[in-house]
């Protein structure tokens, strides 16, 4: 499991970093930077709490293997 943020929805409330500092730190503007790593099983409960605590519903949990059918680009255009 991984945690992901929707950057359009996120309003930099910062609650997530308080609830899950092992995985989420805030950048200098208050937006969450999420560690690019698998969630340890024992953090899953806290991760769910962080997801439901986000006031703008910007966080979600996603399965570990990213889907392959998309067209998201690696860099740039």
């Amino acid at each position, binding site marked *: 499991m991984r945690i992901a943020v*929707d*950057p*359009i*929805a*996120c*309003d*930099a409330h910062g609650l997530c970093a308080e609830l899950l500092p092992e995985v989420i730190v805030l*950048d*200098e*503007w*208050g*937006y969450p*930077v999420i560690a690019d790593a698998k969630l340890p099983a024992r953090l899953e409960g806290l991760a769910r709490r962080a997801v439901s605590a986000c006031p703008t519903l910007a966080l979600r949990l996603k399965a570990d293997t990213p*889907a*392959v*059918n*998309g*067209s*998201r*680009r*690696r*860099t*740039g*255009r």
Partner: protein
Amino acid sequence: MSLPRLLRGLEDVPLDRDGHGRVHGELPADTDGRALVAELRRARLRGRGGGGFPLAIKLKAVRRGRRPAVLVVNGCEGEPLSIKDHLLLTRLPHLVIDGALALARAAGAADIRFALDEGDLVGDDMLNWALDARPELRGGRIAATVAAVPSGYVSGQETGLVRWHNEGVAAPTSVPPRVTERGIGRRPTLVSNVETVAHVALIARHGAEWFAQLGTAEEPGTALVTLAGAVARPGVYEIALGTRLGALLDTAGGAVQEIDAYLVGGYAGTWVPAPRAGALVLCEAGLRAVGARLGSGVILALPTSACPVAEMARVTRWLASESSGQCGPCVRGLGAIADAFESIAAGGARPSVLDDLTRWCRLSRGRGACAHPDGVAQLVTSALDLFSVDLLDHARHGPCDACERPPQLTVPAFALRG
């Protein structure tokens, strides 16, 4: 068929329906598109809009959908120096239309939307002129329409195109859902670049084996490159993938001034020092070796008479102003990067500003809803590598003589207001 492929018939411009038929022959009738799906998989054609994603994978995803798909042919060409899609649309529109028709059949789409920049009046004219010669596409089993999309660097990003069609707002949305699952009118949507679609027109005729007669084993086929800057004959060139940049430059008459660096991949691209440029192998694998990508195919030769600091200050400000303004890290990160370049160019910036720039690049990558910040980070990171002496010189001593010269990295003028 050797080179040119896509650009064949360019001398009789613009190529009308009959002329197009004489040059390329007719599109084979493959009404359910199944043969083409297999052929495109074997051809391993990658998208030419900048992302380089394999077309067959997206095609498979839209075909899996329960509802009939929509095909968007992306002709927005928001990259300021790129003119390849415009060239195809204005001079060889029937090739693009054939490719769209073939790809729509393969995708199971009854609906083709050509998306053009609202400012591309000639593209719009020529495409409509060509569509008038295809009455079957004006309300037949497969219908094609042309949409004018607001100008802008990110307008041509695929979720933004879908949102424009759905809500009239040309700004990206969050993923998921992917447009291949839920796009225009909630239908599976295939967004493909104009050049990609033109390649499909030829693969539909000649097949994957023919396609692979040019290019590398890993990356078959040809690609269009827009060559800009201080070369004798700037413009659009069709190259076999794997061609060396040195060979392309020779074809273009070589450099007309001493060159400092080449920008490969447009404004989301990578700076490569001139001494290493001639040996660059133009394909994803060859460019990956130097940390670059072909992207949308723009290559700019920056002469030593230009000031890289002034160029970067101008272009990063413009790129920051083109953010759709929805994601905090993009708005703040790109804004901070542009401010830093401006302070460096003006003089009096602290040397630690380069460390700040490195950090903001890292903080920009992968943190927007679309890849716009990633592109800026790529451009800036390579500029920090290559131009650190120029940057520190300006930071300490202020503007140089070259700062006021006309720009090489041009940006649309309207965006420079204020």
